[in-house]
């Protein structure tokens, strides 16, 4: 019995890693620009396909492809998207950018469909089937690697946000864009960088996940919904909050298998999303803040 539980928990933690990596990009863009990036799913999906081209087509090392090649490519994509699509509607009501980026997502899906058809793809590497055991619990090397990359990303992001000038400028813009402008920060450029970075993270997440799961042009949609859930739970102030939210969601989904059938797991994330939206305007960190009436930072 405990072995089963241990397997469940380990699996949940590894899945949480995937969810978290998926969600950083969304959180960043929303935190800085207050824009809900519906093309996020498209970037994730394209990340998977680009990884496919690199690893299967060009026989590139999976690690190099997903971590070193995909992110810079998608950074450029993100910058392009921001300049062409998002910039013109910054002043319009938020629903405009929501619908616009949704349209971009639709286009991305179709482009993938045209180039690669609707066939379901998988990427198999020497690592795909490797596993080892910790006690009685089997751990798949691939999933562990993805989890580790996600964790390292979190660390690097944290360092970037707190130690570098650019990172601090991004945080400043996220907290108060007017004050940031007054402090001399070029918020237009920051927006561009944030969107680029967010898209890069999404692409990388897609590339990493393509090593574990099969994908087709519809890939990314259900993850995006979970990411919304996570971002709302974890708040947009910190990546740590995102990681925490991912863990909560993954655990909720894993434990829910005990009561409802496997096909309904996504249902859990939707319910959590709705509840999260209603209950936590600032994510869990915001809720805690309210509860303890701490002086506003």
């Amino acid at each position, binding site marked *: 019995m405990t072995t089963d539980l241990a397997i469940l928990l380990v699996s949940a933690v590894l899945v949480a890693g995937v969810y978290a990596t998926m969600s950083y990009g969304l959180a960043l863009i929303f935190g800085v620009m207050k824009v809900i990036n519906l093309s996020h799913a498209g970037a994730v999906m394209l990340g998977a396909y680009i990884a496919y081209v690199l690893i299967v087509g060009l026989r590139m090392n999976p690690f190099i492809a997903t971590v070193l090649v995909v992110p810079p490519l998608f950074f450029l994509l993100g910058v392009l998207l921001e300049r062409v699509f998002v910039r013109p509607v910054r002043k319009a009501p938020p629903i405009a950018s929501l619908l616009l980026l949704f349209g971009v997502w639709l286009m991305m899906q179709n482009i993938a469909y045209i180039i690669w058809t609707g066939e379901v793809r998988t990427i198999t590497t020497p690592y795909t089937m490797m596993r080892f055991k910790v006690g009685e619990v089997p751990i798949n090397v691939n999933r562990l690697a993805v989890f580790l990359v996600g964790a390292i990303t979190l660390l690097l992001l944290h360092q970037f946000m707190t130690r570098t000038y650019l990172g601090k400028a991004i945080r400043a813009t996220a907290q108060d864009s007017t004050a940031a402008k007054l402090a001399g920060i070029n918020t237009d450029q920051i927006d561009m960088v944030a969107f680029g970075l967010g898209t890069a993270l999404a692409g990388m997440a897609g590339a990493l996940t393509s090593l574990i799961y099969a994908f087709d042009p519809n890939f990314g*949609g259900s993850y995006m919904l979970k990411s919304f859930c996570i971002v709302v739970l974890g708040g947009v102030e910190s990546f740590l909050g995102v990681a925490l939210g991912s863990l909560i969601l993954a655990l909720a989904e894993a434990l829910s298998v005990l009561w409802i059938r496997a096909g309904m797991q996504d249902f859990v994330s939707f319910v959590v999303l709705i509840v999260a939206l209603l209950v936590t305007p600032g994510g869990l960190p915001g809720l805690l803040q309210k509860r303890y009436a701490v002086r506003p930072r």
Partner: protein
Amino acid sequence: MRAARILVFLGVLILLVLIPVVGRGTYFQHLGFLTFLFIILSVGWNLVGGYAGQVSFGHVVFFGIGAYTTAILWLRGIPQLLTIPLAGIVAALYGLLWGWPCLRLRGPYFSIATIGVGEATRLLALNLENLTGGAGGLTLPTPEDIHFYLAGFYYLAFLLMVGSLLISAWVRNSRFGLGLFAIRMDEDAAEALGVHAFRYKILALLLSGFLVGLAGSLYAQYILYIDPGTVFGFSMSVNMILMPIIGGIGTLWGPVLGAVIFTVIQDRIMTLSLNLWGFSFKLVQFHLLVYGALLVLIILFEPRGLVGLAERVHRRISRWRQARAVIETAG
């Protein structure tokens, strides 16, 4: 000018009424039926998304609930036509269920929540097999005189379409509609003036859900087969957003225009292919691209859709006419 417009209008009306008579069971009748349905969907969505400004990405739930209510009740022996108003009512009540928590959310948060509602409902339909027949869906009994039956539903859809337009027009000119427009533009300012925003939003959702539910009911009775993928699919929600946006969100005729154009495009896309550079492209591959590009172009350049475009052109023309008149009197 006025007389000509009325004549054209009546002409179109007569044409529509005659189609089943002239072309029994033809392609045009089917296309007509679908167009009427899509107009109802589009007008229904517009009440919430256009008038009240609450953009719902999950409106398909009303369509599916309406379809399944009719199917389930009919299969259990309830008289077929009676299931129609029941479908609308059940759909509206479902709207009350999820609208009560979700309409407390503002703007994009509401929209995100509706995506969740749509998908959650689809999963429910997929998994509550005893009630809904699961992934296999429900098949409804074929009637004896199929042509007469389908023609009848053609007219029913036509009547419901007219009804939904009348309702939309009535809302526009009522105190209720004024409140909805105010809510769309600035919910807090509206509240400060005495508008009970939450109640109005719920009412709009109920009305919208009722209409879309009716459409779902008709769909089930015409196609005689429903499954979760079709009647609860996300793509239907997307279509319900696209149509009013293309035509002109928040206007009276915009959703109608958008629905007509959309149905035509859908139809053409499914069958046409393009011959370029020696390759033959089947257009159906591009439909997401087309819709995505339309959405992007409209939001970037003419957010008020075709109606907005028409108004702009109209203004240009009248300004040009004014300028000409001035020149002529001066010269």
